[in-house]
């Protein structure tokens, strides 16, 4: 316990120091190295642009749109991924029949579908959500599928020896067993959802941080591009954090996995 808290305190101090060094390098580095500000604007220029974008360019609105799309895409994509994962996990025949198509879809770069979806659904939020659904679907499905496949057959037999029904075996054994791998999939999915949404916004529309990014680009406003990137990182971080908080709550029974085992 004591050794652990020493590690944590030292680690935290080093983390903060690294952050300060990074921010300082951002602020003064470009000037010292003679990099023009339209290539890499300094920290203070980005901060000024942040305030400007907040007041003039509806930064809050665009961020909210992106967050809403990420949430919708993540929720639907992971739900769909989990359901399909469980169904395929329980039916080897279905998995055998579908696996080549699933593999093909998994290999296809999902973001490449964005222009197509925009052709289908126009400049609305829906194509963005759809890209996110598609991209979140796979890590969740694959993890759930493997988890269901790898449930210890002796555990299933134990439940069967108590005369468990198929549904009881699922809810009491298979579903809880699949939770840790499913959360591993959800973590990956939470960051991928942001990527899916942004690509959708970059391709077309007039809302969201991706749009703001292309807007800044069109005006050669490099600080605005940076502001958008920072905000997107923050959105991704929030999504990841949300998954971890839920995971900690649900997987509370797992033994602690080390100092920063969650990252």
């Amino acid at each position: 316990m004591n050794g652990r808290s020493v590690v944590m305190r030292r680690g935290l101090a080093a983390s903060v120091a690294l952050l300060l060094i990074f921010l300082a390098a951002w602020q003064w580095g470009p000037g010292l190295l003679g990099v023009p500000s339209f290539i890499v604007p300094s920290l203070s220029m980005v901060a000024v642009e942040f305030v400007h974008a907040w007041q003039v360019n509806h930064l809050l609105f665009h961020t909210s749109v992106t967050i809403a799309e990420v949430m919708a895409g993540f929720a639907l994509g992971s739900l769909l991924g989990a359901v399909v994962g469980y169904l395929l996990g329980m039916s080897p025949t279905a998995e055998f029949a579908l696996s080549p198509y699933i593999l093909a879809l998994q290999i296809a770069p999902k973001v490449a579908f964005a222009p197509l979806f925009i052709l289908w659904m126009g400049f609305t939020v829906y194509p963005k959500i759809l890209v996110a659904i598609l991209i979140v679907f796979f890590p969740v499905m694959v993890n759930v599928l493997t988890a269901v496949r790898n449930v210890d057959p002796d555990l299933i037999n134990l439940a069967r020896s108590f005369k468990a029904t198929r549904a009881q075996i699922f809810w009491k054994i298979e579903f809880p067993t699949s939770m840790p791998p499913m959360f591993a999939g959800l973590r990956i999915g939470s960051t991928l959802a942001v990527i899916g949404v942004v690509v959708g916004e970059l391709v077309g529309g007039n809302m969201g941080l991706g749009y703001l990014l292309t807007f800044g680009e069109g005006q050669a406003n490099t600080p605005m591009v940076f502001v958008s990137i920072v905000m997107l990182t923050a959105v991704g971080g929030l999504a990841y954090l949300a998954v971890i908080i839920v995971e900690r709550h649900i997987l509370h029974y797992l033994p602690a996995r080390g100092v920063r085992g969650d990252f």
Partner: protein
Amino acid sequence: MSGSPISDVRRLEYRNVTMRFAPTRGRDVLTAVRGVSFSVRDGEVVSLIGPSGCGKSTLLSIGSGLTAPSEGEACVDGARLEGPNAEVALMLQKDLLLPWRTVAENVMLGVEIQGMPLPERKQRAQELLSNFNLAEFSNHYPHQLSGGMRQRVALARTLAVDPHVLLLDEPFSAVDAQTRIVLQRELAQTLQRAGKTALLITHDLAEAVTLSDRVLVMSRRPGTIIDEITIDMPQRDNPIARRHDPKVNDYVARLMDRLDIAHASLDQVPAGDAA
């Protein structure tokens, strides 16, 4: 004899059981056991010993109704098994505790599946846990327990469904020698007190002798029963006392002879075949 009330009622019976497994890649049809017949009477504890891979676990699985034999039948209380039976409960070498359930919730698994109302099953779990000196751990998670304690919880879970027959597959082989002796005594006392019928698989010959009324010896695969030795010793509920009886050594020596351990070499045990 052992002083336990063993009646003539046949609780568990194997009638001419043969088990074949379908051929797998590079292997012909595998006959695990052939023509096995024996019965376990009400209140009796019978041990099954035999070389690795001779089909002991297969027989247990058939007795639990999880596996159907290729030929013959297994009967519980005279009725042919067609699937898992509420009167039979299984305990394996692995404790198979569910990590997301507390100790008490793990003990309740079987009765929960069988639909016992919550207050009743809570009470049953508490009773069993206090019997096994685990009451203070009822809200712990399995990973917080030692191997011996986990195995005790598994035994409590097996007893919670109040089965007539317990099928035990090397239940203590994964715990250390001292804990094993304690667990053996607890099992012996529980079986005696509740008058349970048990079929115990073990590789530990002294365990077989000290815990049982009778020991069945199996041959190498395809497994058949080659000998049956009645343990004519008192105090079946006190294996530690039995261990002090020199008769145990005679029985163990006889079992070793029957198993031909002196002449068996490792290459006769098919590698990677042990299940």
